[in-house]
């Protein structure tokens, strides 16, 4: 099934990806973001906060936004 994944880290990936039925938010997070701790991200499914063990559904919109994003001076 396809879900829309938005990773607001690094280059700002946003695209539809194929996931197996039964995939949880935590599994998708590990696959898309890597070994970083999920508590360092705002994780939203269909724009709502969610538990990491929530099972994804076809067409879900999942976004990962780092809570710490470093600005600069120029």
């Amino acid at each position, binding site marked *: 099934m396809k879900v*829309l994944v*938005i990773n*607001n*880290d*690094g*280059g*700002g*990936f*946003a*695209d*539809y990806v194929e996931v197996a039925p039964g995939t949880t938010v935590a599994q998708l997070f590990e696959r898309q973001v890597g070994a970083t701790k999920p508590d360092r991200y*705002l994780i*939203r499914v*269909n*724009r*709502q906060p969610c538990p990491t063990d929530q099972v994804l559904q076809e067409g879900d*919109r999942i*976004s990962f*936004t*780092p*809570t*710490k*994003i*470093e*600005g*600069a*001076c*120029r």
Partner: protein
Amino acid sequence: MTFNQNLLLRSAIAIQDQLHPLTLVKSRLELPTATWDRCQSLLAQLRRAIDLSWLHSAAVMRHDLEQMLQQLQGEISIFNGRLEPLTHESPRASVRDIYADLVALYDEFTEVKINRKERSISVTTEPIVLEGIYLGPFEILLNWRDLGPGSSGSYRVIALDAYPAATNDSVTHPHVQDEGLCEGEGRKPIRKALEQGRVLDFFLIVANLLRTYNSGSPYVSLSDWNGSSCADCGTTVNSDDIYSCEKCNTQTCNDCYVSCSRCDGIYCGECTSRCEGCGERSCQSCFDVCQGCLAELCRNCLDENERCPDCHEKQEAAIQSTEAEAEFETCPSIQSDSLGQTPVPA
């Protein structure tokens, strides 16, 4: 959270229209015909110069034509780049997505304002406190004309209860100057969110940027936020412009610190004195007492015998006088030749 569904829906439709690639590029879709015409004109002149065997003119025409062809290639390349958004398959927010984003803003932020006339959306963050320094709440104001492919990304970050850096009023946050946010590592995701019309993500990223302090690259570091006060004149200055007295550690500014004229050490005004001999300020360690008159002078003004210029002159004069006397006493007696022995004629 209450919101006007009709306003949100109408705004979502307007924003989605803005995202349509044609909206942005249609006004710029013009082939570089003027440059092409110029190339044709130069080519005609080159042919005529060759026909007339005007070799110098032909060389000039050829050079000009080469340059014009390069310009034409550049303009074609730019035109081609403008066509790219028309074929790019990046997911772009639908009216439904944008509407859902606008609704979600009310869950994420304490205040949301949508102004269809101004074509703007703004949210207000909670009061931002970084490393114990209160910076107040910020309004993030986005004009949705800045959404879509090739967006300039101009938005404003307005301090609503500004507590700017002591040394620079225009810096209201370590990464905000003149209401402009320096995005640092947030730059790419912000561009991407604006390009795809992901309004909610844009505001979340900017808000998280405001909640984060990067000590490696601020406009004004938080350690300097309140500035440092000069003990001599009371001015508040950046800590880079503060000097610490080598004797008493008092902090003085660039205008008030004293560099000792003799040892080049850095001191505050109170730990230096003006030398009565030369008028320069020196630290106490570089002052000494004249062995003659006991006046305190800087060591630059004392001779090798630790005497001030006046005493030095007096001493020199005394020495010269003594030497003269000594010379007088040690010299053989000056007597008239054969005094008292004047020959007397027989």
